[in-house]
């Protein structure tokens, strides 16, 4: 019997592929550390197919589709990308002066100033350091990045039914929450609760730890701290800190339920990044680097697996056309698939139908001045109990004349409230909410845009939702190919609504295809 050591890793995987199919390759790859889920990205090691010119059809010119075109054309595949809309980029959408927002029945034109600094990222807007694939492409394609403040201590938390309806600084909330928690723990130490589990020396250290963590007084009580922000003085007169918020009021409030710990999710953990000049920088860079044809205004009419490959019909330029290819990579939103004629197995379509359509809503305002900077806020997010949920302040172009803020961000069930409105009604509503947090907000607004992804042309949704049940039943079915057809995109990942999910899904599909190509080639060679 051959020892593993005698085989190269790649050859071994080929053997696994022949024996066990793509699931086996995937599991084995993970076990061998070939594919890292976060950490350092796997180098795509795809086989050159130059001589035989294998063809690939990519459906959808979003991030996943663009990455497939980019990678596969480099190893000799002949790639064609079909995109239903007139725009390349999918949900990666940066709005600037004159851009059209193609919402069904309610088109808007972005009326921001004709100035490259005035833009709004209506789709992806943040990149955390662990999204290795997005960052790798940015590095490779020379897409400039900058730090984006996400969690901001000087920003506000506002709850209409708490703290007298007044916005309070996030720093104050954190300091008081920690202070009270520490005081309670200190009391517990004093009551000898830990005497059995900790040594006297450790108990002393715990006492110091909680005092330091909550900035307690020598007697272990919490009486407010400068960590919550300086109320007055601090430079040439002594500083004063805020009175602590009552413990009961803190417990009653809701900020601790999500906002307080939001940055502890790795996807939102500061420092985050954004693409300088707008998130569509990565789309532009891909388009510049890709030589394959990207056909826009090409709506798919049918997808069929054939004995030799995949046949796709589409409309373009008033004609019905057909393309055949060896492989098909499909990022069309899953909720459209049941209404595109196909010859896929019933359970495959059942799986695509079982995922729930998600919805996101974003709204942006061009402000005539950067009034938040006068309040000591430089980037980051204010959270409010109002339906707009959040206000985002721009991290870039500090102290420039104007700025674009995100004036509303609603997810899934909450989006419907805004979707029902006309664009003008949405702006008006969001202006009222902003006014509660920043008096004078409305007067600062010069222009606004709203993007309800659940109503956007050729999208009708964003961020599919996989219930645990559906995941258990269909994940493998949808992640793995149906014939020579691969579903992909953020929808086929554990990172729905993130570009990293889209890229990981595309990478998985390409590697799976590559294994099949290698296995088939190996079999042919064997036969000869």
């Amino acid at each position, binding site marked *: 019997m051959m020892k593993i050591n005698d085989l190269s890793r790649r050859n071994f995987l080929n053997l696994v592929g022949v024996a066990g199919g793509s699931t086996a390759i995937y599991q084995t790859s993970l076990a061998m550390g070939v594919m890292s889920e976060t950490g350092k990205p796997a180098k795509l090691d795809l086989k050159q197919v130059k001589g035989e010119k294998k063809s690939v059809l990519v459906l959808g010119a979003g991030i996943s589709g663009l990455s497939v075109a980019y990678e596969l054309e480099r190893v000799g595949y002949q790639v064609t990308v079909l995109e239903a809309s007139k725009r390349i980029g999918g949900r990666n959408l940066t709005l600037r002066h004159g851009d059209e927002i193609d919402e*069904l029945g309610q088109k808007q034109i972005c009326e921001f100033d004709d100035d490259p600094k005035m833009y709004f990222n209506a789709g992806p807007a943040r990149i955390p350091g662990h999204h290795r694939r997005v960052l790798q492409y940015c590095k490779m394609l020379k897409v400039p990045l900058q730090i984006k403040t996400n969690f901001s201590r000087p920003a506000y938390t506002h709850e209409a039914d708490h703290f007298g309806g007044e916005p309070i600084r996030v720093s104050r909330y954190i300091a008081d929450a920690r202070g009270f928690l520490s005081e309670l723990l200190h009391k517990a130490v004093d009551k000898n609760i830990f005497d059995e589990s900790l040594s006297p020396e450790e108990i002393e250290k715990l006492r110091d730890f909680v005092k330091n963590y909550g900035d307690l007084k020598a007697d272990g009580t919490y009486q407010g701290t400068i960590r919550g922000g300086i109320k007055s003085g601090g430079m040439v007169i002594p500083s004063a800190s805020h009175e602590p918020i009552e413990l009961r009021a803190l417990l009653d409030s809701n900020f601790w339920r999500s906002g307080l710990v939001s940055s502890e999710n790795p996807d939102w953990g500061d420092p985050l990044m954004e693409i300088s000049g707008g998130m569509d920088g990565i789309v532009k860079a891909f388009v510049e680097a890709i030589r394959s044809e990207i056909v826009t205004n090409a709506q798919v009419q049918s997808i069929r697996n054939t004995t030799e490959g995949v046949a796709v019909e589409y409309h373009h330029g008033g004609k019905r056309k057909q393309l055949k290819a060896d492989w098909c990579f499909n990022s069309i939103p899953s909720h459209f698939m049941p209404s595109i004629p196909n010859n896929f197995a019933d359970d495959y379509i059942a799986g695509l139908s079982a995922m729930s359509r998600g919805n996101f809503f974003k709204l942006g305002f061009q402000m005539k001045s950067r009034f938040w900077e006068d309040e000591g806020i430089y980037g980051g997010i204010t959270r409010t109990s109002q339906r707009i949920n959040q206000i985002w302040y721009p991290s870039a172009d500090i102290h420039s004349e104007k700025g674009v803020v995100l004036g509303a961000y609603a997810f899934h069930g909450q989006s419907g409230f805004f*979707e029902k409105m006309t664009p003008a009604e949405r702006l008006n509503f969001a202006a009222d909410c902003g006014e509660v947090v920043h008096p004078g907000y409305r007067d600062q607004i010069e222009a606004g845009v709203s993007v309800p992804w659940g109503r956007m042309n050729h999208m*009708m949704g964003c961020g599919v939702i996989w219930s645990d049940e559906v995941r258990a039943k269909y994940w493998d079915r949808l992640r793995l190919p149906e014939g020579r057809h691969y579903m992909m995109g953020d929808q086929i990942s554990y990172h729905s609504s993130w570009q990293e999910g889209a890229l990981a899904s595309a990478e998985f599909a390409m590697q799976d295809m590559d294994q099949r190509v290698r296995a088939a080639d190996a079999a042919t060679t064997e036969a000869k």
Partner: protein
Amino acid sequence: MKGDVIKSLVFLLLVAGSLSANGKDRSIPPDDLVYCTVCHGVNLMGNSLLKAPRLSGMASWHVKQQLQSFRHGWRGVHEKDLAGLEMRPMARELTDKQIEQAAKFVASTWSDLPRKTIKGDVGHGKMLYQSCLACHGREGEGNETLRGSPLAGLNDWYVKAQLENYQNERRGHNTEDVYGTQMKAASMVLNSEVDVLDIVSYIATLQPKLRQE
């Protein structure tokens, strides 16, 4: 049984014949009407995930009437009619000419009949349907003069949703909507949820004729 087979064969020939003759399954929407296909699917075959019904081959007079209903705010304004609310903005800004074009396009399409998703007592449904005949036609073909909607070829879940809309003040609530208010009253003939399931199951057995418009 045998009769059914012959009936479907005749039907298939009818469809196939007209398809090759006029190429109706190849209808390509003008740019402005691609929007319809985003939700209603290729050839307007319907999409249950978006609650967008099959419209293929629907009589143009009926399409016009419904688009106008949406435009007037007779349909798609009730807060619980979520699918209607999604549709309404599409119709709100349409001009008469655009409505005309949309109706023509819809009538020119064709697709396979929708899958049945609702199981009810078809026999009981047929009995209940007797009070619908006058306006909606024996075969569910509709009646232009009486403005009775064609029902054959619609998705069963859509017919059910509309009956429930009528019964719950979400449709037929505006007095200017003469035919809608009539239908709202008529929907009260169905006394229970079971009645609704039964009649919907029966309607789903009605075969639409391919229109030659």
